């Protein structure tokens, strides 16, 4: 069982919901990213999504776009990110999902990527612009390397396609709670409930809900409906706002623990 499945397993047993945190690697620096991950783990984060910065993040809102640009300006590369995760693994077993767009992975080499990810302790990969139809070129290597291929289901997906996606996913299903880009709208609880209920009927995989969640209240409400929630832009914004604050790590950890409380 992968670290991701194990985590959901443990949480289910505890009747807790998974708190999945997204942050852009390299913003403000890879060193700080590493510190943040460790602090967030301590504060209660269950799974981490590490964003690979890309020049053209077409599914992201302004907050994550800007974070990616800053990270790229800092010279952040996929190789560097993998190395950072490798280091992290010496001190932490928190499940890690690499989250990003296909081109940086393609440029790195899909086979080389799968092997390196495995070696450095990556647990899952979520490639925003790699739908099932195109996934084989990565999965032929990443599946073999034991890396969970996590898929998105969107409000637009439709039931036949949901079934197809669910059947091919590993780790968990990421339900996108708004029809939109990251961090731009607040999710509507009633709609999410209908969708998650439907998805849960077709898969045994855990379902996490993300896009637009920012407050403990939203976390609690949505946590009641699904197996986990993903927070992204809210954390990325907080990192940016506190970039010059010596207490950055503490501030973010405090936020994470407040959210986690809401999920217990």
């Amino acid at each position, binding site marked *: 069982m992968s670290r991701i499945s194990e985590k959901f397993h443990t949480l289910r047993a505890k009747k807790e919901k998974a708190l999945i945190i997204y942050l852009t690697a390299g913003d403000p620096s890879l060193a700080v990213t590493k510190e943040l991950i460790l602090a967030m783990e301590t504060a209660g984060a269950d799974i981490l999504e590490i964003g690979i910065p*890309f*020049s*053209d*993040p*077409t*599914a*992201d*809102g*302004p907050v994550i*776009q800007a974070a990616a*640009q800053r990270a*790229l300006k800092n010279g952040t*590369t*996929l*190789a560097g990110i993998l190395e950072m995760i490798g280091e992290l693994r010496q001190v932490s077993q928190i499940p890690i999902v690499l989250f990003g*767009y*296909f*081109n*940086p*992975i*393609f*440029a*790195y080499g899909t086979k080389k990527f799968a092997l390196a990810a495995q070696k450095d302790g990556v647990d899952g990969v979520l490639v*925003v*612009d*790699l*739908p099932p*139809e*195109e996934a084989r070129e990565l999965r032929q290597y990443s599946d073999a390397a034991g890396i969970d291929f996590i*898929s*998105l*289901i*969107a*409000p*637009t*997906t*439709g039931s036949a*396609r949901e079934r197809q*996606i669910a059947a091919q996913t590993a780790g968990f299903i990421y339900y*996108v709670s708004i*029809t*939109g*880009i990251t961090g*731009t*709208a607040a999710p509507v609880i009633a709609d999410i409930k209908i969708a998650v209920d439907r998805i849960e009927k077709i898969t045994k995989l855990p379902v996490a809900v993300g896009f637009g969640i920012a407050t403990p209240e939203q976390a609690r409400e949505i946590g009641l409906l699904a197996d986990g929630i993903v927070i992204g832009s809210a954390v990325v914004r907080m990192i940016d706002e506190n970039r010059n604050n010596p207490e950055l790590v503490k501030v973010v950890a405090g936020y994470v623990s407040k959210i986690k409380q809401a999920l217990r």
Partner: protein
Amino acid sequence: MKNQPDKYGHFGIFGGRYAAETLMPALIELQEAYKAAQKDKTFRKELSCYQQDYAGRETPLYFAARMTKALGGAKIYLKREDLNHTGSHKINNTLGQALLARRMGKKKVIAETGAGQHGVATATVAALFGMECRIFMGEEDIRRQAPNVFRMKILGAQVVPVSSGTATLKDAMNEAMRYWVSSVRDTFYIIGTTAGPHPYPQMVRNFQSVIGKETKKQIRKIAGRNPDVLVACVGGGSNAMGMFYPFRNEKDIAMYGVEAAGHGLNTSQHSASINAGKVGVLHGNKTYLLQDDHGQVRDAYSIAAGLDYPGVGPEHAYFHSIKRVNYVTVTDREAVAAFSFLSLQEGIIPALESAHALAYAMKIAPKMAKNKIIVICLSGRGDKDAQTIIEEKLL
């Protein structure tokens, strides 16, 4: 030649549909709607009526006598896409997509634009069919291409300034895709070139193929035979594909797709994705991209705003891979010289984009026999560029 693309939009290893899940159902719906429309006589009839009565097709295939004489080699014919309504080949495609949008019951359209030609062509068909229209355009391009911004506004379109990234075409396309993700249920995205996720490259190619089909008919009537050489500029590649595609199986015809070499391929200031890029994935398809070693997309540059794109249509990547088309390059300087040459020789001011095709033809024509025939796709008129050329004292 095998029919391309496959049902997932692949042209060889290129193309495909690399899109966010939110968009995938819309892309599949679009693909099906397009397939149905293709088969529907009424749709085809309607499109051809608008092409004729509205856009002004067919466009002439003009024998450039003075240019031919001045170059002293092959006979040069110009396919006059500059005479289309709105001034370029872009209307061929926007008419097709807007009619499809109407058929699909969509009342809103969006588009990205760089030079503003596709933006104007989209705003035009949106007005024609009474649709709400939003055009995404980089702030830098809004500044550079003010006249086209005015035209879009007069046509009732909302021009949305894009300040992210380098504030040019690539970013406008990013932003259009983002907006589309949020509005995909009621909004049709009219992509302006043979790029984007499947079925766009195929669909745009087909809508633009009217260029090559007419050319074939016309040259056979004029000369009783096929041309020997076809030349077209390649930005995203829609005018070139429209010209080349109907001739793809005519083995004897040499085809040249001309990329913008800007300040030179040895600088970083160019847009030669095929000649100087690497394979990658951007804007929904796999193709040649200008990018760094880490897969970050680089800014493109060309004096011709419409060529200023770091990717290229996947079918061009495919034609390059099977060596059906020769992809060559022309610098800013050569393009400006060709711009001036055609203006002075034939009284036709070409778009700077089209001037790239002309410049390449000017290189090869003198070396060809006088009985050979070159057809150049004159993709648009250069009114939009006149000011730049004069004010920057480029002539």
